[in-house]
């Protein structure tokens, strides 16, 4: 040090480069300080998205909530912020996971639930929720999101275990979703989580894979039953109208028969009367003529005519020969 002071008494020549040198260090230090302060200040600049709010803390203690836009707070470590999405509806999947490719994968341990009548079914659900109170959300529960999932799983199972399998598969399906969302909400409110459950949607509610075949068989049986009844109905619709047609036919035939019968009778009767009238006018000769006409026809129409000697000689005729020998 002393050396320098001695030299210091001297002039200009050493002075100039020294000044220059000290100016260089100063400026470097200055620049470093400016950069440092700048970086420090930059830690206070932040952006809040349209669906978000930021909770600003001063030395760790909550100070205020900042809405969306570009904002500035005092630099680290004085103030810090935490951004929370309060408008987007977020969803959690229970019993399955949608993979990045868009297909879904079953999570059997989550989806298998036991019903009140000790059956097992597979139930997949989606919970939709939103953060409505960012302050409560941030300061009351650690990882409150996880609570939504656990709580929903728990309540869903509880609801399912209070119902029978047939109810869950059919009529109570919607009720379970609604009840679950209500009870989960009550729980979350109790813990002051700042979360609102928008909906619990039951997706696939099905029997587990191992029993799908038998459940399908029940459905098939219902179809079969319908079909059998329809077939029977079809049969009924076929035979009854046909029978009615047949009945009409029988009736019309009978009526036809009756008309014909009476008409014939009346005709015959009139004919008889007409002939009788003439017959009465010349009884003897007409009677004879009728008889003789009849005998004439009779003899004409006979195939073989025989004139016998007397009534008893007929026995002598060789009948076998006459009829070709095969009547014996």
């Amino acid at each position: 040090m002393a050396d320098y002071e001695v030299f210091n008494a001297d002039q200009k020549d050493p002075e100039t480069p020294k000044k220059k040198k000290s100016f260089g260090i100063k400026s470097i230090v200055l620049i470093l300080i400016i950069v440092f302060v700048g970086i420090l200040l930059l830690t206070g600049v932040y952006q809040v998205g349209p669906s978000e709010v930021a909770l600003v803390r001063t030395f760790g203690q909550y100070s205020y909530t900042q809405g969306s836009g570009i904002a500035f707070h005092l630099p680290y470590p004085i103030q810090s912020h935490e951004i929370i999405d309060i408008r987007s509806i977020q969803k959690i999947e229970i019993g399955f996971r949608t993979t990045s490719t868009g297909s879904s994968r079953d999570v059997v341990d989550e989806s298998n639930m036991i019903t009140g009548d000790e059956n097992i079914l597979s139930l997949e659900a989606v919970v939709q929720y939103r953060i409505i109170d960012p302050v409560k959300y941030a300061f009351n529960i650690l990882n409150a999101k996880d609570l939504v999932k656990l709580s929903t799983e728990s309540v869903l199972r509880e609801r399912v275990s209070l119902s029978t399998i047939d109810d869950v598969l059919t009529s109570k399906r919607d009720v379970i979703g609604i009840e679950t969302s209500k009870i989960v909400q009550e729980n979350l409110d109790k813990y002051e989580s700042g979360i609102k459950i928008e909906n619990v949607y039951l997706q696939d509610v099905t029997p587990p894979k191992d029993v799908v075949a038998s459940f399908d068989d029940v459905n098939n049986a219902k179809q079969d039953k319908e079909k059998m009844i329809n077939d029977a109905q079809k049969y009924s619709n076929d035979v009854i109208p046909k029978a009615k047609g047949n009945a009409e036919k029988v009736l019309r035939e009978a009526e036809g028969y009756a008309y014909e019968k009476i008409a014939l009778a009346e005709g015959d009767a009139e004919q008889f009367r007409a002939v009788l009238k003439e017959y009465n006018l010349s009884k003897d000769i007409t009677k004879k003529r009728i008889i003789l006409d009849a005998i004439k026809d009779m003899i004409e129409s006979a195939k073989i005519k025989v004139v016998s000697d007397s009534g008893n000689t007929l026995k002598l005729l060789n009948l076998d020969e006459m009829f070709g020998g095969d009547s014996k």
Partner: protein
Amino acid sequence: MKKITFLVLGLIIVIIILVFVFSSFYILDQTQTAVVLRFGQIVKINEQAGLSFKTPFVDNVEKFEKRVMIYDISPVRVITADKKTIVVDTYSLWKISDPKLFIETMRTVNMALSRIDDVVYSHARDIIAKYDFEEILSKKRFEILDSILEKTKADLKIFGIDVVDVRIKRNDLPEENRNSVYNRMNSERYSIATQIRAEGEGQAQQIKAEADKQVKIILSDAERESKIIKGTADASSIKIYADAFSESPEFFELRKLTEIYQNSFKDSILVIPQDSDILKYFKEVK
């Protein structure tokens, strides 16, 4: 050179001051509680978030989560009163209610978790063992949960832990029992299916039988009607004939007999005796 020395010195002093300042203050987040330890001894519990002062180099600050924490307890097997094994998966919500007690008894959160594990498991096992499986699935479940919570709460209070809730996430049958449930479900369903088919067949038979009956009724009604019609016509015709023929029974007989003569001897063998009246002129000619 002197200036550089000053600068370096100044820098060192500034750094020393900064270190001093930084180690005299600490920032406590709203979500945390601080326990100030001096040579391992608790001197202060600080719950006020913000900037706080401590004795530099001597005091050590440990921070603990103040919020409610979720602990997903791993599933355990328990046996019910009716000797069924079930897998119970629980979770609990807990928080450090007394940081002083907590740090004295537990030291770390991991220790606390394993303690919660033990306590919840032992109470779950004891309480569930008093109920039948069916009851666990019923509304009794709430009762069970309440008593598990109550006992767990009481046990963990001495560790400065407040258990806010214990809930059953899952209560399932173990893998090996599931198959028997599936078998039962299968046979139940198949029997339902059989019943439905039988009902269908029964109803179909009924409909068909009813249809057959209707057919018979319709046809036999028609048959009866037709017989009545025919019979009436037959009766009328008999009367018509009788009325006409009774005007001269003698002429009727004549007509009928001659008709028989005319029509009945077709292709027959007719034997006429020589002394019959029809041949009365036969001999005269001879």
